[in-house]
């Protein structure tokens, strides 16, 4: 009882849904793309773009990254914040020191660097398993946090050892406005998601899930477990790294290492557990939940009875409520919002069926 076997982590993974006729999917796909790429920028105001949609997208991306590692390959990690910071600082230095590189390339390379760091951290997973692995990823987390705070080089010796985005531009198009940053984020998220979907249905994805479900059997039938784990760490950290860079430059504009502290790691882990492990859509649901719930509570509670209750109490109450919700979800819906959603769809399907 001292270890979570990777199989246990797998217990979250919901069963796969049946395939749909392509045409309908393509139409939905096109409509959705039109809405999010054209509709939203036209309609949404700065607040929605800057304070809700952009962080929502980036957190979804980070969730996706962690989900590949934890939900698909069954390797739990709390190093997310650290890997995000690697992505952010690496991208920053690339933009700073190799200005001739176009932004997307710097982003990708930043991600790759984060991926390599993640892979190095992943070496531990070859010997350490389950909860102990979680604990050991904390070492990575704290070390990276310290590293970027400690050595000025990473932040180009800025007084505050915090980094701030150089001008964001692609082919001369300035992206520093809310819409620009939204579109940058959205494109990154869309592309990465598409690739991730391919990946989890490829040999690689199958390798990961095999390791997750039963790593001993996997090695006996000739699946390269070690390299599989390392690949998982690499890809996961790559995605998380890109998320980190976006968090720094597309969302906040300025960060120092503490924006990527342990709380961030926890936040992302909440996202995939609430959203659903081993599910792609789950990351978006989880992130939406994490971003919107506090704001919602804020509006709802402070709206009608804002004057009545003291603000401090209100915040404490929110905190308690959030904790309660997390517990409730773990008990009532361990497969996360994704499972909830698919159940709703099935229910609707049954209702609408003739």
């Amino acid at each position, binding site marked *: 009882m001292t270890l979570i076997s990777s199989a246990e982590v797998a217990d979250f993974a919901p069963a796969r849904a049946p395939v749909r006729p392509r045409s309908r999917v393509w139409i939905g796909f096109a409509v959705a793309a039109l809405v999010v790429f054209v509709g939203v920028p036209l309609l949404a105001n700065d607040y929605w773009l800057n304070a809700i949609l952009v962080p929502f997208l980036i957190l979804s991306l980070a969730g996706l990254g962690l989900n590949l590692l934890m939900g698909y390959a069954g390797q739990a990690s709390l190093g997310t914040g650290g890997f995000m910071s690697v992505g952010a600082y690496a991208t920053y230095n690339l933009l700073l020191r190799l200005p001739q590189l176009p932004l997307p390339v710097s982003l990708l390379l930043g991600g790759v660097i984060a991926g390599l760091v993640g892979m190095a951290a992943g070496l531990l997973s070859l010997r350490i398993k389950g909860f102990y692995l979680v604990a050991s990823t904390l070492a990575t987390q704290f070390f990276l946090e310290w590293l970027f705070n400690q050595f000025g080089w990473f932040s180009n010796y800025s007084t505050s050892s915090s980094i701030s985005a150089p001008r964001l531009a692609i082919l001369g198009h300035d992206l520093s406005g809310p819409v620009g940053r939204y579109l940058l984020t959205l494109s990154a998220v869309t592309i990465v998601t598409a690739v991730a979907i391919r990946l989890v249905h490829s040999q690689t994805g199958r390798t990961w899930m095999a390791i997750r479900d039963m790593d001993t059997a996997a090695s006996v*039938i*000739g699946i390269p477990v070690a390299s599989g784990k390392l690949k998982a760490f690499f890809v996961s950290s790559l995605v998380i790294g890109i998320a980190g860079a976006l968090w720094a430059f597309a969302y906040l504009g300025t960060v120092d290492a503490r924006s990527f502290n342990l709380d961030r790691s926890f936040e992302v882990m909440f996202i995939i557990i609430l959203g659903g492990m081993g599910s792609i859509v789950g990351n978006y649901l989880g992130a939406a939940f994490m971003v919107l719930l506090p704001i919602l509570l804020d509006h709802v509670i402070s709206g009608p009875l804002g004057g009545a209750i003291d603000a401090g109490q209100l915040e404490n109450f929110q905190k308690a409520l959030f904790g309660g919700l997390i517990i409730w979800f773990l008990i009532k819906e361990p497969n996360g919002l994704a499972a909830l959603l698919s159940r709703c769809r099935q229910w609707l399907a049954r209702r609408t069926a003739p």
Partner: protein
Amino acid sequence: MSGPILQLRDVSLSFKGIQALNALSFDVARGEICALIGPNGAGKSSLLNVINGVYRADSGDVIFDQQRFVRIHPTRAARFGIGRTFQHNALFKRLSVRDNVLAGLIRHSRTTLLEHAFGVGRDRSETREFGRRADDIIAFLELPRHRDAIVSTLPYGVQKRVDLARALVGRPTLLLLDEPMAGMNQDEKREMSRFILDANRTLKTTIVLIEHDIGVVMGLSHHVVVLDYGRKVGDGTPEEVRNNPDVITAYLGAVH
């Protein structure tokens, strides 16, 4: 080429002082079905684990396909063409039958992470190729109607068959079956025996299997090795073994 595909020479293995295998020697001829029988704790599973490298023998040689190895990592053993099914089935329980079978082909994959990520290069052709091979085996073991089911939802008997499919799809030269019929009723056993025979005949797979049901063993195998407390007490054709007095005392005497 001919000659035994697997030779064991004085293989010994012990856990914490308990002798699991005691100077064990026998050959497995190419293309035969060899059954290991013996009471519980006779060391049968340990033997399989030594053959495909899960355990390391304390002494003795395992010679597979003319090459001798002392310690081999299970993954490499699989690469050499040693397939394996498990006593307590070890399927990937969250995956569909097809995905489980496909997992058995991963060791043949020649594609890289990048090819998988972007669906370029050999990825598409390989996916098609593997899909075909998987579907062939699924058809061969009469599993098509379960093709997309999540294995954990399937009945035990079927799961055992999926396990066999996952091992066969990689076309192993030597297939180790650890109690493929454990916990099955007579019909299921008959069915499974048929599949094992077919695999052996049509796919030319040499098979080493562990089985308790003497009836099944005698009907199925060309060659029987009897173990008792890590020692070999009988080795020969079913007939020879059936008439071997040691075997009778050691094993058949003690009816389960």
